[in-house]
């Protein structure tokens, strides 16, 4: 990427990180002052009761000398970026090498590292995405071609999506477990469902995007429905397809993560919930960062495929 394109992004990212450090001061001020008081320092006001009722900024202004600990607090409400990075390092590379189940002590990769949890989530994401996107494309083609399908299924495809399927996750997992299905498949079902809707809506829109003039031209060629589909509708829908695939893979990742909340059997969702139970904010943020990196790589891969496809089709300069 050229410097000209990169520099504005870097400036924005640096600005956000600066804001993050700044925000950590008022966010953590209560914990920092409590810790300073325990360490024998004088804080103002001295009673914890009074401090509890005061605003964050007021406390910051009255205790400027104690704020240095804001970025290294033991139980921060907002951990500073470098604290999250240290946690990330410890739970990936350090855990894989030196952890109790790491390479040095057991000779195999650790099943407690974020790498392992990330792969668990990634598997469910992939399986769900392939099922959801495949079914979505098929249904969209059906809807555009069959009047009875369009009229009967399309309204329900929309309605069914307004069911927050992620809320069903615990139930789906319990029900599938009771009929003997567990592990990857229940999560993939949730992922598939979440990635299904964007693809159906995007593809129906894309397949209907050729305007009357183009359809009329196909008619003058006496083209049948299959030819119109292959030569006009599908090529015209490609930009819409990729746009919705990017949304779909991201939704699929969300589905896998939420699907991991009810059963603590590994995965990034399980890590986040564990962190939330034990007040380990740095652990939540580290899991979030890994999830973000996964999402970025997945969407980037689809974006790369999109650029290649559109360039070869002559739809992009």
């Amino acid at each position, binding site marked *: 990427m050229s410097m000209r*394109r990169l520099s*504005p*992004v870097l*400036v*924005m*990212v640096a600005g*956000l990180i600066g804001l993050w450090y700044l925000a950590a001061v008022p*966010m953590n001020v209560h914990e920092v002052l409590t810790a300073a008081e325990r360490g024998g320092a004088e804080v103002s006001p001295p009673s914890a009761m009074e401090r509890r009722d005061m605003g964050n900024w007021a406390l910051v202004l009255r205790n400027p000398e104690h704020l240095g600990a804001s970025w290294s607090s033991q139980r921060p*409400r907002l951990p500073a970026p470098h604290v999250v990075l240290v946690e990330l390092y410890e739970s990936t590379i350090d855990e894989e090498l030196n952890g109790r189940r790491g390479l040095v002590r057991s000779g195999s990769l650790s099943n407690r590292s974020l790498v392992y949890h990330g792969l668990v989530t990634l598997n469910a994401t992939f399986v769900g995405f392939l099922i959801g996107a495949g079914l979505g494309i098929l249904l969209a083609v059906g809807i555009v071609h069959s*009047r*009875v399908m*369009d*009229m*009967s*299924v*399309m*309204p*329900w495809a*929309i*309605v069914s*999506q*307004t*069911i*927050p399927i*992620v*809320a*069903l996750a615990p*139930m789906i997992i319990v*029900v599938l477990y*009771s009929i003997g299905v567990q592990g990857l498949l229940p999560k993939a079902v949730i992922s598939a469902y979440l990635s299904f*809707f*964007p693809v159906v*809506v995007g593809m129906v*829109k894309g397949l*209907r*995007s*050729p305007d*009357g003039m183009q359809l009329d031209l196909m008619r003058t060629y006496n083209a049948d429905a299959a030819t119109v589909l292959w030569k006009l509708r599908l090529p015209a829908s490609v930009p819409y397809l990729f746009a919705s695939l990017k*949304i779909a*893979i*991201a939704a699929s990742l*969300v589905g896998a*993560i*939420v699907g991991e*909340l009810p059963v603590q059997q590994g995965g*990034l969702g399980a890590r*986040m*919930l564990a*962190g*939330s139970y034990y007040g380990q*904010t740095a652990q*939540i*943020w580290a*899991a*979030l960062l890994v*999830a*973000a990196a996964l*999402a*970025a790589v997945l*969407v980037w891969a689809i974006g790369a495929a999109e650029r290649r496809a559109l360039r070869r089709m002559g739809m992009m300069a």
Partner: protein
Amino acid sequence: MSGVVAALGVWAAGFGLNLWLANGPVREARATRLAVPLIFGLTLLAMWELLVRGLGVPAVILPPPSQIAATFAGNLPLLWRDFVQTILKGALGGYVIGCSAAFLTALLVDRYDYLRRGLLPLGNFMAALPIVGTAPILVMWFGFGWQSKAAVVVLMVFFPMLVNTVAGLSETSAMQRDLMRTYAAGWGQTLRHLRLPAAMPFVFNGLKICTTLALIGAIVAEFFGSPTLGLGFRISTSIGQLDLGMVWSAILVAALAGTFFYGLVSLIERRVTFWHASQRGH
């Protein structure tokens, strides 16, 4: 066994009726448009009821629709309070704040090229992130009330809306923009008369995606802590009590709310973007 046979019979009858309605002499009637999805839905419901009864599926795995309807009708005041808490306060509040903030940001991003080059890659990146994962953090910060749910929804809808609006604003062709220049139209006039109308299909696409996201955000955030009401709270506690009738009732409320919400946005879309190819021809 008779339940299964009856279910198959219902399926054949419903499908046959729909085929005739959709392709027969009344295919263009307004009533047909309404009747076909209704018949499809009723067929599915009847099959669900007959299959669950015919195969003797335990109610803790899948309750029949009649039982769900009875639970729903018997707990209307309770479900109404959940609806107000989760949908009207959490989801709708966050949706309005998040979407309008994203729209205004998109105008800024579009106006200043530096912001565009800096924020758009970030926005694209953030739109793809599993933002619902911030729910435990936001609940920790904003407390158990509806404010933390609205905060999750704001974060969830902001970036998809931003990316869609910015994409829409760059939808005009060079020829069209040149025409506006030959009219000596300023940035504001070009925006109002050319680029905003051209952006509307994308804006509404974003708004429609966000309706679903808002519901998901508000409900999932309740799994991480809520007062003793709300749809997410109802779902998670009822699963604990194996009261699946109540779980499905809460989901029914969410589904009805979501459908209404989505339908309302689609209706406005049809009014605003009547000229777009996807809105014509059907």
